[in-house]
């Protein structure tokens, strides 16, 4: 899922202050799961902003709605009526959702309420970790399904660096060494020989380094 967290309220206030009627639009999938942009967070932010603007003497009507997903037109459509009734939209979706809204509603000012952080998983309740960089050429099959591009701070492809100590990365003691995890898992799977395969320097052309990416599925286009 896409993981994000809410921007500071002061930053949000600066963006939306010029408007009289604001719609806070939540997104009920990824950012709901990471407690950043679902229905509850939308209601909480709306309440906090109403109080903050009231104290500033700014008269602003703040409305709320949450759609299932802001990255798909079918779901965005549900918000069309409310978007038309408001001067601007504060989207609590990830960056993709915010931009999908902007494409679908070209005349509506759309602002981001979250900072999109990474693609990841919920490691445990309330703990989210980055697991995929979206490099466009997945090598998880060789590395025991643990990504060295994402989980190794240095993105090393042919084994750990000398800075790994007791399974901890030298970059930050809160980071587990991705290569230690790869080796432990391959050992457990009896696939340690995978590491004899030399991995050549990665061609980053398939990643964002090659520019904005696009996937076209001709079999689904009429």
């Amino acid at each position, binding site marked *: 899922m896409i993981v994000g967290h809410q921007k500071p*309220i*002061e930053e949000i206030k600066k963006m939306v202050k010029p408007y009289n009627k604001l719609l806070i639009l939540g997104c009920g999938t990824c950012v709901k799961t990471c407690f950043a942009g679902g229905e509850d967070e939308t*209601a*909480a932010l709306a*309440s906090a*902003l109403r*109080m*903050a603007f*009231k*104290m500033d003497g700014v008269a602003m009507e703040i409305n709320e709605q949450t759609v299932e997903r802001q990255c798909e037109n079918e779901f965005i459509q549900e918000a069309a009526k409310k978007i038309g009734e408001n001067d601007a939209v504060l989207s609590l979706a990830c960056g993709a959702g915010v931009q999908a809204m902007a494409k679908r509603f070209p005349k509506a000012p759309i602002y981001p309420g979250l900072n999109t952080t990474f693609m990841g998983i919920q490691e445990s309740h309330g703990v989210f970790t980055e697991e995929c960089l979206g490099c466009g050429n997945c090598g998880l099959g060789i590395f025991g399904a643990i990504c060295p591009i994402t989980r190794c701070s240095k993105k090393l492809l042919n084994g750990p660096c000398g800075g790994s100590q007791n399974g901890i990365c030298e970059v930050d003691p809160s980071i587990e060494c991705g290569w230690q995890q790869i080796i432990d898992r391959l050992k457990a799977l009896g696939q340690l020989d995978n590491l004899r395969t030399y991995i050549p320097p990665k061609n980053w052309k398939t990643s964002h380094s090659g520019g904005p990416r696009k996937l076209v599925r001709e079999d689904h286009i009429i």
Partner: protein
Amino acid sequence: MENTTKAKITLFHCINAFTEKKSLSTDRVDVKIIKMPCSGMVTEVFLLKAFEAGADAVSIFVCPEGACRYTEGNIRAGKRMAKTRSVLDEIGVGGKRLTMHQVKPAEGANAEQIIAGILEELKALGPNPAA
């Protein structure tokens, strides 16, 4: 707060921690009571909405540590209080207006003392600036 103004307090409580036998409202304070099956049901939205509705202070009565029927409801309530306090500080309402107290069911009189303590705090904090 000035003596002429009647303070407003919203009290969320776990039904296992506290049973309202008589009103906690007096000529100095209106206490709005919201009972819940467990204090762990308190969320940031409920607490913020209470302030938005005009409460000068909001308090959560939870079961004592280790006594939650659902094991960790009072711990969750504490975490949510801390998060909501930071939001209240961020927007300028003031996090000190939100408090949590451990209460035993038999301590009805204690509730009155807690309300009296909150009223004392409100003397310094003043009325809710967002009301």
